[in-house]
């Protein structure tokens, strides 16, 4: 075990390089599943693994299993567009997402795994005075909350992103953009692998190919799970299965939830030479966000396909929608070929904000409703969910992310849209 978990370092790369790279060990252990655990986390995505890591690291709870139906990195953790930002303005989101960015800033060192967090900035474009006013409000609120935000006028914008078309005749010219410089991107599956490896090193069992098929209850309290690898007892069970939350919650007896499952597509182009060194977002008339990966691929996406779905594949109208948005602001991309396209299943909550909370069932905890913003939240989600499970009470930062907030009249509705399961 100790050898398996050897620290990564510049020296280890040098040593391995001189010995044919034959000495690298498995990044995390593959233990046999035990009969019982103190805590079981259902779902081996980024959030589940981060939760297990922080249970062990912050709360000293190492008798933990993470049960994953498929394999680590095969779900939404490997399907997102890797954007990390904290440009939120509503209480409940602001502090939570800023905590996440702060955790990202130290994550590679914390996990001894290069998650390739790159603070290349996140730029929201403005196309009308009204949109600029609304965004000014948001970014000023961020500044009041101690989060970095700045306005770039047209000249600054053209220098910052030469790829943007600022010249042509258009009905709605780009007026400028709001920039969060500390925002950026990370290598998405590295985050999963890093949390898996670090959790495993602290004694967490990561069990892949283990589907949860039911829950074991005693006097109304959850005391274990039924799985494809047999029954496993646990004092506490945390669900971190965004996309399939309604199914697992149904099995657990939580009833219907304020969630619909929708699919979101993402696209990556053939690798190009360095062209774009920030994240650009076109919201409003259309919806389009783009960055360039370290391999050179243009990584981009847009809206949901728009109808309830559990199919991890996308549909053509969104291709057209996203491509036309791309052409309207970055016409130079017109001859770039799309290399791959895929979709992931999102838990779309009724206010666009997530849930990290206790449930009405003893021993059952819920992490869900990430809409299409879950990736950036990975470390803070694990941090807060671990606290909620360990202390049987929410952390200050997820105090408002409750399942009953709609009934209490306290939705966390960033877009001010009202109940609608298509926001993010």
């Amino acid at each position: 075990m100790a050898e398996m978990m050897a620290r990564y370092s510049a020296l280890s790369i040098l040593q391995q390089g001189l010995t044919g790279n034959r000495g690298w060990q498995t990044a995390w252990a593959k233990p046999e599943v035990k009969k019982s655990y103190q805590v079981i986390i259902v779902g081996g995505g980024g959030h589940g693994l981060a939760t297990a890591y922080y249970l062990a690291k912050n709360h000293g709870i190492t008798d933990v299993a993470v049960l994953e139906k498929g394999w680590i990195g095969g779900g939404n953790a490997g399907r997102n567009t890797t954007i990390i930002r904290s440009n939120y303005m509503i209480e409940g989101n602001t502090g939570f997402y800023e905590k996440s960015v702060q955790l990202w800033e130290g994550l590679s060192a914390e996990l001894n795994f290069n998650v390739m967090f790159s603070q290349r900035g996140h730029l929201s474009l403005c196309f009308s005075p009204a949109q600029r006013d609304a965004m000014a409000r948001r970014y000023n609120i961020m500044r009041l909350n101690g989060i970095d935000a700045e306005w770039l006028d047209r000249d600054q914008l053209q220098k910052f992103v030469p790829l943007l078309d600022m010249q042509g005749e258009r009905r709605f010219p780009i007026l400028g953009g709001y920039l969060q410089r500390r925002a950026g991107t990370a290598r998405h599956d590295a985050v999963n692998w890093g949390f898996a490896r670090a959790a495993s090193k602290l004694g967490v069992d990561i069990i892949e190919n283990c589907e949860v098929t039911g829950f074991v209850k005693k006097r109304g309290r959850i005391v274990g799970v039924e799985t494809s690898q047999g029954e496993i007892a646990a004092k506490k069970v945390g669900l971190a299965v965004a996309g399939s939350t309604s199914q697992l919650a149904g099995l657990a007896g939580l009833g219907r939830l304020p969630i619909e499952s929708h699919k979101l597509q993402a696209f990556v182009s053939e690798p190009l030479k360095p062209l774009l060194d920030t994240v650009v977002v076109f919201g409003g008339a259309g919806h389009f966000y783009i960055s360039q990966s370290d391999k050179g691929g243009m990584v981009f996406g847009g809206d949901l396909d728009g109808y309830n779905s559990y199919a991890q594949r996308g549909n053509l109208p969104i291709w057209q929608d996203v491509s036309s948005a791309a052409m309207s602001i970055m016409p130079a991309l017109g001859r770039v070929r799309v290399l791959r396209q895929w979709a992931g299943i999102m838990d779309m909550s009724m206010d666009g904000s997530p849930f990290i909370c206790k449930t009405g069932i003893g021993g059952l905890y819920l992490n869900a409703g990430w809409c299409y913003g879950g990736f950036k939240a990975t470390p803070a989600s694990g941090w807060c969910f671990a606290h909620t499970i360990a202390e049987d009470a929410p952390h200050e930062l997820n105090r408002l992310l409750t399942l009953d907030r709609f009934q209490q009249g306290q939705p966390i509705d960033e877009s001010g849209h009202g109940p609608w399961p298509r926001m993010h």
Partner: protein
Amino acid sequence: MLRLNCPFCGERDHAEFTYGEDASVAWPDFASPDSQAHFDALYLRDNPRGRHLEKWQHIMGCRSWLLVERDTLTHEIFSVRAAADESAGLNKPKSRRGR
């Protein structure tokens, strides 16, 4: 592309249509004082992985509201019918619990 067979216009690409909502939602009478029923209808969803009854509007065609039964996993479409024909049976509250 999904293909919806509009009972008025024939089979068309789903891009001609706008997705409305889950048609199984049991909306209470607007004046009903039962706040729990209003809450359930507004916020809670079965969210099935399988057969799903939903409302679509043929926005680029006849503009009719349609009831579509579709599989959310395979996207197979079982039926498309005019919502107006069945509106009498649509909005009756169902039992809220134990579904």
